[in-house]
Every structure is written in structure tokens, then in C-alpha cells.
């Protein structure tokens, strides 16, 4: 179903804005974009088809990341050269991801155990469930480790040992090599930068997420960017990947303008509320809570899939 076919009653505007406010507040509170919760919840709670949820969420994300980038620019935390180089990989990734979603949109229904279900709903529900499980367990594990470390129960080395994959990527020397003075990087293969951009762009185009959970660790651990530069450059990159994503999804008729506006109004206010409360609460328990929230998201997605399979 396309945005033009999907009838979204204007009376739903306040509820969608409220929903955006809740997700925005949680995102601001937990220090993440919240995109990976937004799309599956729009589908599970409001019954919005995945392709419209992805396209419209990218619109909301474009607005949020533009506002955040404008704020970050005054601190000089953005490595513009790195950001611009990454855009080429990001744009290619977004295009591939959006086209896969387009194929799923036109794939019709598939039969699962004798019951018909939309191919897009089935595949996207499973992909989102896998993504939420991956992110949820990573957050819960990391927060528990931090809690144990701060309580003195576990002694960790000053720097966590890098994984073999990261070590291999760091020594990858395929021409052309580029230097990034703003990040203090003397030489890095352009292919690594494009690869990071492609991977996060793919997730943006197909799932409507910012991809910060991949880009941030990649910038810090693989490229060796200082964390403050990684944060600013990540926001700059989200602005372009979401902006390109909303454009390509608009050409495919996947963006619902009223939904974009409702989400933007809600998330803009919610993110500021959430961020101000983070300063009061903060800490690993907050990340632990968000990890648990991701598992609740998995349950909601699975219930929706079950209902569309057995009660359609």
C-alpha cells in the first residue's frame, strides 16, 4: 500500500503527535534516536504499513537530525570531510535498502502454514524482531557490565581489547587512502569509509533507522575518531541519509506528509523533555531499561504478526 492509498484520519493527528512525543522522550532520555522503535510501533499500534512507516519516519528523522546538527555546528564537532566522503556510500546503501522494501511492497501475499500474510509485513516483522533482540541484548549486557564495574565487582582493563575484525579493518590499506585531519586520522582506506556509509545507509533505506548504533562504534573503534567528533559527524550523516531516504521514498509514494508533521511535532518536544531528564537520572540503569524496552518491542511486533496471520 502507498501513502496515497492509506487513509489516515486527521483526527488521529493528536494521537500520533503524542506517540511521537513518547518515542522522542524515550529517545532523548536514553540518548538514542529511537528510530528502531518508531517504525515497528507505528505498525503494531496504528496499523500503518511498514513502507509508509519507514518513509515517514525518515522524514521525522531528517527534521530531528537537522535541528541537532545546527546545534552541534557551533561546537565544531563535525568532521565535514569524513561526512561528505561517507555520503556516497550512504546514498548507495539507502537506494539498495529502499528498493528491497519496494520489492517487498509489490510482492503480494505469501502462505505461511496455510494462512496468507503480506510478504512485506512478514519479512519486516522478522527483521525488526531480530534487530530489536540484537540491540536489546547489547544494551543490557553493556549496562550490566558497567554496573558491575562501577560497583567494583569486576575489574576491567583500561581499554577493552578490540575484536579481530576491528583489528583487521584498521590495518586494511587498499588504495585510495585519505587523511582526515579534523579527526586526527593520518591515512585510512576510502573503501572502509564507503563501507560504513553503505551499511548504515542500507539500514536507513530499508528499516528507517538512523544507523547510529553501527556508525558510532565504527567511527570510534575502526576509524579511530575522537568520540565528540564521532557524535557530531554521526548527526551530520543521519541528516543526509534520512534526507536522501525521504526523497527516494517520496518518489516511491511511501511518505505520508501528515504523519511526518505529527511525528515531528511530537518528537521535537519529546526529545527535549527526555534529554533534560537524562541529566537528572542518567547512568547504566537507564540503558538497561532501554534494552528491556527493546524486548517489549519484539513482543509487540510478534503479537501484530500473529494477529495478521490468524485473525486477518
Amino acid at each position, binding site marked *: 500500500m502507498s501513502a496515497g492509498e492509506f487513509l489516515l484520519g486527521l483526527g488521529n493527528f493528536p494521537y500520533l503527535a503524542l506517540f511521537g512525543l513518547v518515542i522522542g522522550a524515550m*529517545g532523548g532520555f536514553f*540518548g538514542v534516536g529511537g528510530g528502531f522503535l518508531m517504525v515497528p510501533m507505528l505498525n503494531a499500534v496504528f496499523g500503518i504499513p511498514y513502507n509508509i512507516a519507514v518513509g515517514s519516519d525518515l522524514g521525522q528523522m531528517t527534521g530531528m537530525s537537522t535541528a541537532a546538527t545546527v546545534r552541534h555546528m557551533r561546537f565544531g564537532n563535525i568532521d565535514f570531510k569524513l561526512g561528505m566522503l561517507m555520503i556516497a556510500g550512504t546514498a548507495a546503501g539507502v537506494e539498495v535498502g529502499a528498493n528491497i522494501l519496494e520489492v517487498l511492497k509489490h510482492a503480494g501475499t505469501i502462505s505461511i502454514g496455510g494462512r496468507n500474510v503480506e510478504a512485506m509485513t512478514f519479512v519486516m516483522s522478522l527483521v525488526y524482531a531480530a534487530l530489536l533482540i540484537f540491540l536489546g541484548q547489547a544494551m543490557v549486557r553493556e549496562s550490566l557490565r558497567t554496573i558491575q564495574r562501577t560497583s567494583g565487582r569486576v575489574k576491567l582493563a583500561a581499554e577493552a581489547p578490540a575484536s579481530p575484525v576491528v583489528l583487521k579493518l584498521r590495518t586494511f590499506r587498499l588504495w585510495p587512502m585519505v587523511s582526515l585531519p579534523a579527526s586526527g586520522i593520518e591515512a585510512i582506506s576510502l573503501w572502509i569509509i564507503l563501507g560504513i556509509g553503505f551499511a548504515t545507509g542500507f539500514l536507513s533505506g530499508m528499516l528507517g533507522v538512523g544507523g547510529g548504533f553501527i556508525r558510532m562504534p565504527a567511527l570510534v573503534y575502526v576509524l579511530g575518531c575522537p568520540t565528540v567528533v564521532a557524535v557530531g559527524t554521526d548527526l551530520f550523516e543521519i541528516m543526509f541519509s534520512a534526507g536522501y531516504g525521504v*526523497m527516494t521514498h517520496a518518489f516511491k509514494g511511501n511518505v505520508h506528509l*501528515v504523519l511526518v508533521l505529527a511525528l515531528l511535532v511530537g518528537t521535537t518536544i519529546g526529545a527535549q523533555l527526555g534529554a533534560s531528564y537524562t541529566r537528572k537520572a542518567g547512568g547504566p540503569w537507564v540503558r538497561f531499561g532501554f534494552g528491556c524496552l527493546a524486548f517489549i518491542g519484539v513482543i509487540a511486533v510478534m503479537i501484530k504478526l500473529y494477529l495478521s496471520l490468524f485473525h486477518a
Partner: protein
Amino acid sequence: MEILSWLQNLGADANAVAPGFQARSMYVFMCIALPVAMGLVVGMGLRLIERMFGIELGRGGGH
């Protein structure tokens, strides 16, 4: 509510499964311009408030 109805109508032709579908240029323009304009207004507004009251950004910028 007029702006909502206008936005709703603007996207009404976004029926990509219809034969010969082509997104209207105004619809595509608004899909990009609406969030960017709102982001710029919010970002600059917050930046102004931060400057006026000397507020420093927290970790991650609270995006």
C-alpha cells in the same frame, strides 16, 4: 486544520501501485522541505535559547 488537509491532499496521488505513477514534484518537494524547515527552525531556536541562557549541550546533544 487547513494545513493538514492540504498536506493530506498533496499526498493523495502518491499511489505508487497505480499504472503510470509519477510522484508530483510539489509532493516530493514538501517531503524534504517540511522536515528540513522545521529542523532548522527548532535547531536555531534552541541554539538561540542556549546562547541567551548560557546552556551547554549534554552528552550526545540530546537529539
